[in-house]
Each structure stands twice: as C-alpha cells, then as structure tokens.
C-alpha cells in the first residue's frame, strides 16, 4: 500500500492535443479518490499515466516515494480494472486470476491461496473453471476485480469499471466496490463520468474539466461549496439551477456575480417569494416531482414532494445561504 502523488502532471498527445495539464493531487495511503468529469476531459489519460500505459509529457507521478515516470506498468505495483473487463478470453477464470502472479514467479502454493481468497471475497468460486465467455457481465466484472485483488498491489486503478453493466447491477456493484475497498484499505483511483457513482464511492472527489482540476474535496464539500459554475452544474442530480444574474436583478447581494446557482431542492414555493416561475413541464419520480419552469428567460427546476399542489405559475423563495454566486469572468465561486 502506498500514497500516490501527481505533481504538476500534464499530457500532450503526439499531434499536439493537450489532454491534461497542471494536475496536482496528493492521494493518501488507503484513500479512495474518484476522478469525475464529462467525457473527453482527460480522466482516462490521467489514470493511464499513473498506470504507465501512457507516457508522461510533463510533471511527475510518485507511488510511495518512488518516481515512476519511466517505470513499466508491471513494475509500478498497481492493478487496473478496465471498462470492458479485458479478461483473457482463452483462459479460465482461475488462469485469468493467476496469470499476473505466474509472470511474477509467485510460488504455486501462494498463487493457489490468493486465488482461493479472492474468489471467496468476490464469490466467484463456482466459476473458477469457466471461460469468460460463459459468464454474465456482472460475473466478468467480479473476475476483473479478482484479477486486481490477487496481485495485492499498492493501488487499484479503475477506468469506468461499471459502465458496461445495467443500471441495477451498477448500483449493487458500486456498493460492493466501496465495501471491498474499505476492507482491503488499498489506495484507489477511480474514473467515472457518472457524478452519482463519484459521490457515493469517493473519500475525495477530483472534478476535471478540459484536462484541468476544477475542484478537489469530499463529496459533501464539493456538493455544498462547488468551486465553480462548472462543478455546480456537474455535481448533483437534478443539476443545480444556474441563472445569469442579470435575469434576476432584484435579488439582494448578487450585484457583482455573473451567474447565480441554486439547487432545485433549496427552492420552496411561497406565495410572496422573490422568484416568479412559469411552469413548463412536470416530471414524476414517485417520491418527488421535478417541476421545470422559466423565470426571466432562464430555465429553472425545483423538486417538490409528490403531493405538493401544482399551478401554472409559482413564486419561489430560498434560504440566503443556499445561494451560490459565480464570477462573471472565470466562473469561479465568489465567497
């Protein structure tokens, strides 16, 4: 086990595409860090640089106190779980698990012990002699995790490991990964574009945008105090309402802001509320309903209990501390 340090890390692909720039992250031993951001923001590139699958153009990656920039993936003491599982199709599950250990000349008895342990933890014992083709998606995912576990590496790297699973299984596996990581206490770096997955899994979140770090913090910190309008719009579901300050000039304290953010759940319906909204559409979610509307030409969404009365126009109010103000020029948080 080890800490991981990304020091001013950057990547320029041959051809000149800058995928990542100036990334600094300190990952403590045993910590679960989730890299989250929209597709194409450089998450995979970052992870692959840590894994050693992509060369490092700028900066440094340290695992423990060792600079690993020039070290082969196999010698970095990491294990990676891929999106499409990347199991060896011609090997049985057992051989898949054992392959990396065999290449490292681990004694046979030791390999057997570790495979048995991993298959017990992941409950893949019954499939050990099957080929991956004879497994369901969820089972393959477990095998892929098993392959990482048996190695007992300093760190796990996950690249969107759940995105090939159906929604229900994804939620179940998410929890399993979380429990597994708590139990093994292995430093983990996990990539996803799914903000909900990121929120539920992470000890700390790293929100990426255009190859740059927008914010690092615990899920609640990021949720409560998004560092920029981008983070505000990306984290939380339904997304935070972002309206330009000029659309609601009468709100107090918003004079210098470019955008005003307020979460749908922070808005309440009150007859004399300062924001007047025309209702455009209602989505029923069962436990609650999402009401979409318009104010001063800006779209706005609120969540209401499913038994709340509806009307074509509503007046909304909010607690003053629920307001997030973002700068006109750079979109950064203003307090």
């Amino acid at each position: 086990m080890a800490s991981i340090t990304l020091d001013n890390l950057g990547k320029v692909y041959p051809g000149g595409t800058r995928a990542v720039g100036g990334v600094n992250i300190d990952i403590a031993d045993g910590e679960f860090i989730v890299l989250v951001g929209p597709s194409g923001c450089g998450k995979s590139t970052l992870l692959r640089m840590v894994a050693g699958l992509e060369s490092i153009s700028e900066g440094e990656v340290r695992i423990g106190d060792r600079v690993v920039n020039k070290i082969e993936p196999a010698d970095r003491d990491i294990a990676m779980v891929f999106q499409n599982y990347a199991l060896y199709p011609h090997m049985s599950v057992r051989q898949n698990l054992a392959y990396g250990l065999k290449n490292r000349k681990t004694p046979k008895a030791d390999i057997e012990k570790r495979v048995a342990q991993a298959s017990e933890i992941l409950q893949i014992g019954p499939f050990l002699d099957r080929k991956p083709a004879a497994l369901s998606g969820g089972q393959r995912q477990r095998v892929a995790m098993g392959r990482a576990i048996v190695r007992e590496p300093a760190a796990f790297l996950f690249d969107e490991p759940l995105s090939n699973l159906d929604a229900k299984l994804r939620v179940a596996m998410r929890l399993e990964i979380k429990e597994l990581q708590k139990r093994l206490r292995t430093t983990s770096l996990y990539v996803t574009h799914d903000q909900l997955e990121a929120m539920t899994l992470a000890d700390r979140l790293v929100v990426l945008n255009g190859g740059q770090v927008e914010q690092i913090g615990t899920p609640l910190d990021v949720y409560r105090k998004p560092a920029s309008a981008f983070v505000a719009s990306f984290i939380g579901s339904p997304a935070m309402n972002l309206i330009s300050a000029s659309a609601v000039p009468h709100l107090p304290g918003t004079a210098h802001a470019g955008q005003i953010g307020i979460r749908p759940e922070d808005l309440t319906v009150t007859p004399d509320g300062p924001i007047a909204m025309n209702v455009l559409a209602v989505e029923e979610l069962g436990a609650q309903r999402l009401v979409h509307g318009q104010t001063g030409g800006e779209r706005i969404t609120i969540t209401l209990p499913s038994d709340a009365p509806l009307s074509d126009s509503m007046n909304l109010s909010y607690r003053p501390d629920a307001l997030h103000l973002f700068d006109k020029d750079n979109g950064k948080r203003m307090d």
Partner: protein
Amino acid sequence: MIENRPGLNLLAHATLILGVCIVALPVWVAFVASTHGPTDFMSGTIPMWPGPHLVENYSQMLGAGVSTSGTPPVGTMMFNSLIMALSIAIGKIAISILSAFAVVYFRFPFRGLAFWCIFVTLMLPVEVRIVPTFQVVADLGLLNSYAGLSIPLIASATATFLFRQVFLTIPDELTEAARIDGAGPMKFFRDILLPLSRTNIAALFVILFIYGWNQYLWPLLITTSSDYYTIVAGIKRMADAVDGLPQWHLVMATAMLAMLPPVAVVVGMQRLFVKGLVETEK
C-alpha cells in the same frame, strides 16, 4: 433470411446436388480409370464403372512405380510433397505471424516502409519472378533440395495481412492488461496472441498446405533428380512417357493417391477451419 417454402428448398438442394455432381464427375472418372487395365483405354470410349484391377494398379504404384517414365515410387514422391507442403505451410505461418506481430505491436523506424515492402510482394507470386528466383536458388546450390523446393515460396503478404487483421481485432485493453500483468512482448505473443489466433492459424494451415501440395511449376523447374520429384509434378512426368503410350490407369491411380493428403487435412481440420473463417469476435 429464413424462408420456409418446400419449393425453394427443393430448388436449393437440386442446385447444390448439381454442383456436387459437376465437381465430382472428373474425380469419379479418374477413380474408374484407376481400376482398369492398361488396354481398356485404347477403345476410345471411357469406361464409367470400376473395373477389376484396383488392387493391382495401386499396389504397383505404391510399390515399384512406373519404370518407363523415370519416376520413383509414389511413396517417395508423396513424402517429398509432404515435406514441401508442410515446410511451406509452417514456414509461411511462422514468418507471417511474426511479421504481423512486429507491424501491429511495435513502433520501429521505417515501420511504414516495412509494411509496404510486404505489401508489394503480393504482386510478385512465384510465376512472375520465376526466372530470377531460379537463378538465385541455383546460385545458392539449392537445386534438388527440400530447401530449394520450399523457401522461395514461403514469403507471404497475404498471410501477414490476415494475421494483421486478426491482431487488430484484439482489443487494446487486453494488450494493456497483459502489460500490467507483467507479460513482456514475447510472453504476450505466446500466451495471448497465439492462442487467440489458433483458429485462424488452422484455417490458414489448411489453405497453405493445399497450396504447397499443389505446387507444380516450381518443383518441375528445380528438381532434376528423381529423389526430389513431388507427386503433382511427377504425375505430369508419368503422363508424357517418352517411349510408349501413357499408362492412364497408373497415372489416374497416382492422381487418386495424390488427392488423399489434402482431403485428409481438410477433413481432419474442418471444425477449426470453418471456425477460423467465420469467427470475428475475440
């Protein structure tokens, strides 16, 4: 498309049966001819039913051979053909799978050039370069040798392309997983690529074995010692016997025998062969 009309089925079967008959007729004629005596062909009509000389003809061919044509016994020629076909098939597969491996997985200087050089050889089959190739082989003293029979036919762009295509269907993530699992290039080749190309290798083997077995012009050109005659070229030599009539019954018996090894290879490897041709997913 799944059609379920009896009329169509009938038509389809009739077409297939007709096709089989057209292909099988010459084989049948050859078989029938190989069971008759030497005089049965003088009459001008070709017999359509087997005659009584089957055992006699075949045992003569397998034993002594035809003395008049200067060809060795069939056994020797079959053995030569077998060596040649196996060397060509195995050699081609070994070389092309390695070159495809290099082209797909390594970034070396002049990689593009190397690839194009391989590509260009597509336009140069033996028949086109037969005179210079003969010169080279003769200068190297490889006339009348197994090496001379097979080496000039081994380089193969087609097989290289096939393996390149196969390797390109193998997901990058699998390669990366193997890298993280500590498999170096050759280990990756042996443990991952070879097993994953198994069916393609088998399909290619069948095709190349038959290609090698059926080589005619090249062996005819470079073998002057009967010790190195191959069977396909040998049949030709038997057929133009100088001092006498061609002994068709014996020629046909040899032809029948010459067909057996390719048939055996196809039948034996049929399952893998078909899989290798139709399988696309890795």
